[in-house]
């Protein structure tokens, strides 16, 4: 019997292992935190919002051409885009919540800016999108209704304005800020400049009294002490890259970029016409001219975006096309990614002046923008640069010239901005006249809503499509913003 007892004791001993395994003790995840301080979310949101270097936009905006197959961005036969930005909006909401929980206001103010930034990105892509009911899954709203584009813009304008006003009053520190390192003045400048960008994007709506584009624009320009603006490239809303894992330039070591992407021909031609040495910073001489002078415009060539792929690949193989400059795929740091730059702000002000929204000297701001861009690309601006008729603002076609300079200055920066500028103004011209152009030679005006919306939010989606587009969910349909 003793033996039996000792055997039973053995079993009881083995239960000992489990004794420490009380169920209630295992209801916490040792690997994750359930609440965090808001600055941890800010860092993540910044790296999402400011990190926007995109080869797709470079193809759609005719900076580059792709040779490994028919690319839908280049040939304008794309279909759908995604609602991924709503995840960013949720991170903003979380930051604002954690900020409120901690009794801090400043992240709630910045949150309004980021909300505006992400929702503008969504609405300019699709048209009407959910906003008032968006990001409320925690309150059991799984099928948000779509807001009209106009109401979204109205809220964005109000939010940006109040964010700027409140930030001016706020004296809390901003921590976790990898863009401005907590410099609140620079945040105010960015928010104000971005406010101007949104107003300019509504240039087709100057007659709309709800929006009041002109007077809103004037309010900023006329109150520099209340609404400071960027004064140099050091105020750029820019994210620097670092030679650290996951912090490197997004196309560092990218094989495709060095082998299958070439400069777009019309873009190269424009730079040649402008005798613009920024070309030497953007591109490498074409292989066929490899021994020629890298500072000779004739050493450069490109592939036309709308051209037959066959013709483009033959040209590339024959060494007629320039690759993008090596730093874009060999330098882990390269240039920063830009949400909004000083030069963009200056071009916006110049355009507003040309449109007579404000009474400032368009030429000054135009030149400020051009000079800042040359500076960004470490290129010395030729002394006679502005003498060229194609560039000189005094010889007419001011809007076109401003937009063309904006185009050149946004090479591999500011995300898809130039594509939307082109959609708004028609400038610069993106070629669609090649031998094989899909989408019947049209540049798409938008993207179709994501497929899963039909499954998950079908009724609201259908209603939104029906009230906006008679032709249905189509990439060539015209949204309110463009009417």
């Amino acid at each position, binding site marked *: 019997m003793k033996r039996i007892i000792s*055997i*039973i004791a*053995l*079993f009881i001993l*083995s*239960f000992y*292992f*489990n004794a420490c*395994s009380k*169920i209630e003790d*295992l*209801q*916490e995840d040792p*690997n*994750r*935190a*359930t609440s*965090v301080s808001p600055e*941890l*979310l800010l*860092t993540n949101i*910044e*790296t999402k919002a400011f990190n926007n270097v995109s080869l797709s936009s470079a193809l759609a905006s005719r900076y580059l051409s792709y040779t*490994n*197959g*028919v690319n839908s961005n280049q040939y304008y*036969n794309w*279909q759908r885009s*995604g*609602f991924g930005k*709503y*995840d960013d909006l*949720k*991170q903003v909401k*979380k930051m604002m919540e954690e900020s409120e929980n901690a009794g801090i206001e400043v992240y709630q103010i910045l949150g309004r800016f980021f909300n505006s930034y992400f929702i503008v990105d969504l609405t300019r892509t699709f048209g009407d*999108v*959910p906003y008032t009911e*968006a990001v*409320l899954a*925690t309150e059991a709203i*799984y*099928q948000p209704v779509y807001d009209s584009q106009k109401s979204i813009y109205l809220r964005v304008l109000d939010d940006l304005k109040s964010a700027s006003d409140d930030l001016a009053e706020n004296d809390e520190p901003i921590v*976790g800020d*990898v863009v401005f390192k907590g410099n609140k003045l620079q945040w105010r400048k960015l928010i104000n400049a971005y406010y101007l960008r949104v107003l300019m994007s509504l240039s087709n709506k100057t007659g709309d009294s709800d929006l009041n584009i002109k007077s809103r624009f004037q309010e900023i320009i006329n109150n520099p002490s209340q609404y400071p603006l960027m004064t140099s490239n050091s105020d750029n809303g820019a994210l*620097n890259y670092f030679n650290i894992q*996951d912090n490197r330039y997004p196309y560092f070591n990218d*094989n495709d970029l*060095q*082998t299958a992407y070439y400069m777009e021909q019309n873009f190269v031609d424009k730079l040649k016409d402008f005798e613009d040495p920024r070309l030497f910073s953007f591109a490498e001489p074409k292989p066929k001219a490899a021994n020629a002078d890298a500072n000779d415009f004739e050493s450069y060539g490109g592939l036309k975006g709308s051209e*037959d792929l066959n013709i483009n690949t*033959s040209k*590339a193989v*024959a*060494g007629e096309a320039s690759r993008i400059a090596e730093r874009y795929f060999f330098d882990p740091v390269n240039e920063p990614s830009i949400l909004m730059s000083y030069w963009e702000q200056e071009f916006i002000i110049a355009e507003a002046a040309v449109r007579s929204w404000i009474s400032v000297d368009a030429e000054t701001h135009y030149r400020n923008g051009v000079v800042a861009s040359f500076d960004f690309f470490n290129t010395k601006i030729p002394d006679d640069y502005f003498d060229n008729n194609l560039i000189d603002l005094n010889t007419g076609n001011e809007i076109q010239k401003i937009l063309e300079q904006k185009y050149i200055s946004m090479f591999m920066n500011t995300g898809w901005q130039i594509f939307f500028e082109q959609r708004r103004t028609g400038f610069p011209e993106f070629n669609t006249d090649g031998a*094989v152009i899909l989408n019947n030679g049209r540049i798409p005006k938008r993207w179709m809503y994501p*497929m899963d919306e039909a*499954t998950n939010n*079908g009724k609201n989606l259908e209603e939104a499509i029906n009230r906006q587009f008679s*032709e*249905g969910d189509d990439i060539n349909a015209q949204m309110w913003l463009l009417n």
Partner: protein
Amino acid sequence: MTKKITLLLFLLATTIGFSQNQITGEITDNDGIPLGGVNVLLLHSSEGIISDFDGKYSIEATSRDTLEFSFMGFRTQRIAVKDQTIIDVVLAEDASQLNEVVVTALGIKKEKKALGYAVQEVGGQKLEKAKEPNFVNSLTGRVAGLNIKNSTDLFQDPQISLRGSSPLLVIDGIPDRTTDLWKVNSDDIESISVLKGATASALYGSVGRNGAIMITTKKGKKGKFTVTVNNSTMFQPSFIKVPDVQTTYGNGNQGVYAYVNGSGSGTEGGGWIWGPRLDQLDPSTPSGYFETPQYNSEVDPDTGKLIPLPYISRGANNIENFFRTGIIQTNNVSVDWGSEKASFRTSISNVYQKGIVPNTDLNNTSFSLGGSLNPSENLFINSSLTYNKQYTDNFPEVGYGPTNYLYNLVLWTGVDVDIRDLRNYWREGEVGYQQRHFNISYYNNPYFQAYEYQRGYNKDNVFGNLNLEYKLTPHLSLKGRAGTNVYSLNRTYKEPKSYIGYGDRSRGDFTVVDATYFDITTDFGLKYENQIADKIGVSGELAYVNYYRKSTSHSTATDGLNIPGFYNLDNNAGVTFIAINREEKETIHSFYGFVDFDFYDTFYLSLSGRNDKVSTLPEANNSFFYPSISGSLVFTELLNTPDWLTFGKIRGSWSQVSEGKIGNNPYNHIQAYEKGTSWNGTPSTYFGNELLSSDLKPETSDTWEVGLNARFLNSRLGIDVAYYQTKDYNNLIYSSISQSSGYNSILLNGDEYKRKGIEVVLDANPIRTKDFRWDTQINLSQYRKYQEEIYGDREQTDGFIRVGDRTDKIYAGVYQTNEDGQVIFENGYPVSDPYSRFIGYDEPDLTYGISNTLSYKNVSLSFLFDGRLGGLMYSTTNQKMWWGGTSPGTVNQYRDDANKGESTFVGNGVKVVGGSVTYDVSGNILNDTRTYAPNDVPVNYINFMQTTSNGYNKNYHYYKEDFIKLRELTLSYNFTEKLLSKLPFDNLSLSFIGRNLWLSSKIPNVDPDPGRDNLQAPATRSIGINLNAKF
């Protein structure tokens, strides 16, 4: 050795003091057919022998001894020797192996006829000879309803599905939740019992919801001291399926190729295999062939330019030249002995596998100990312990991408490159820094990859169990069991400088991953067993079980290396390490019980219940109960049935099993922040995309099953049919919600599925004569899963499945077609359909296996065919071959035209000449006024293939999965008694063995057996020899 044993026996015999007589005799069945292999045991001793093929035996015994004759399928007989010297025995067939017992849940042995659910057994001897690297592969085709999809890659788990779900693996009654298929050596397996349905395995609780594969390891046997040596050596000298690549055109694009510097740009053609025709005659060159600069060109010292080399198909045999003959060698030595009071077995095994890729291998070594003690009438103890080590310095990476050697060897190397020229894989003067290859932007030199990119794996497993049973009264026992699984795993990844990943040229990296795992399952309870009346029995158990697991993992990686080829974390070139660790703990506290009744050997009833309390759900809903009931009726005992019906039984069962765990992570029921990317040292977090419902409950499956088991013509023909239906409800699903709600999905209890299937096992013994015997078994099964309900008011799931649909419907991105099914072209290219469309089903219609054993005297031949009919699989290999230019189908005039810059290819389809189409949000056509004309726009063939991969002609690369495979062939010779008497062996057999010998299938270039192809290794054929000796 034998001498020693003989001596020992001799001494033993003399001490007994009774005169030894040589007893001989012949053992036959009722028909007078000799029975070989019958166990003849001297009762109360350790001595025993086995009858030879002619049914003859010979054993020394005294007049006071009793002999016991036992043989599977026959009734055991005991005969007292007395004064006889010749004892002929006629063994009576045990009607339909009525008393055959099988291992059921918790290791409880039950009579087969008493079972109310489907169980199929595979004897360990089936795994003994023709070896696979792991035992699960050997089960392919042997169990109806168990579908095993074997991987062709080294050290990759097969996909196992039992009735469409992943079953639990149980070793000696203890669940192995790590599902390590490599840790049990097949030589240590006594038998494998597959519990097919939830009722069968419900006692395991939630982990047993999808059935179980129960492994019983070999234990010491009562009988003589035996040493067994088993060796199998198999070679993989050839392929049954290997990609067939074209050898007409080489590297390049648009018919142009000239090496510049390996970057892939310009005249190097972007890494495509759409280059010039090979072996083109050109009288103007020194070689007489077209010449162009290549990666191995020398530099002309005068001009500094590369000297062109002839562009010829010197690499036509690259695949054969690169791969080597694989080897699988298995060795096992075991010792076993047992008496009435104790038994013991120990074994040591080693499986060595030499991969077909140079510098890859796998070692798998096990030591195991097992034994039992029966010190008193009332106490029974047994335990086993195994140490297993799996280790390799390098095994190949799988999946599509530059890290897969097939990517570099088969898909993306034109045969202008001869693999043998790449054996020297460093660039001159850049050893350690830059690999030498024809393209160093996209691809890795396969030899560089094999010898410099090293994936090490070292896993130490320890697992074992201790069982005890103590009889408190004749009817009531105390039972206890504890089992544990422990491992530590160390993995290393050595990545040389210049190694190419996707879009990334490595700066050299070293990653170390360490993981530990511990689990323990402890049962403690009472067992009751009583014959309450004549032929009415009742038995049951009531127990408490506790399961606890703790696992940790830790990974550290460098951010670039300073010194090339020096793999130590100290050599980190970065500012920081990339490191992450995890810890997981979980526990389940349960009570379970069952009660079994048997009436008159005719009617059997079993009831069970279990309550689990889990740590993996919120506390409000973490305790739940589920029951089962099963019964069977042996109708041949009840009715007057005709003579040809030997045995008949119907069975039925119902069970409910709930599971309270969400995926593999025990903390999935907790909503929390995730770690984000640090930016220049500033940390960040983000909130995940999945929202959790606040009221998560366990998910539940209700299953019912009916079955028929009948045996005919003296048991020479048998059939077992099972039909089952499972309703899965309250499923813990990530139900997708509008992304604009801020989350992609919400985890909740929802959706409902119905699973159903049928399994048929036929066995027959068509021929049985004195010298010749033929046995055959056929396994057939079909399984289906249907969507019964979709959560919320959604019309379809994310995968476009609607209520009532099979869930294995495949929707794919396709091109638009007109109402006649013709593809619509625009400007010569097919137009993408913005909506995914249904193109077929994933699951096979029939999974089958046919095994046969033919034996003539001492020679036996067994072979197994198996395969699947129906179902589609996506093939990455085929798609990439069309895309990249290596498919033999691309050798045609259009390609030659494209090489000349001419656009001559006109796709087969139509173009729109008028009208328009509108869709609703789900992609249904609302209004279609389009009119068509045949597509007549010629395009460049190369551009067309680079854009379409020929998908519209190849069902978008979803291919029919149908196949038949000669899985196994074994030809064995058992040495006769006569020969053995001159040899120091009790038993010796020699076999010629083969696995995966022949394949017939519809899909080109790849083996459909794995059920998927994300660039799989070529399927090899294995042949070899097995030697099994007992002494």
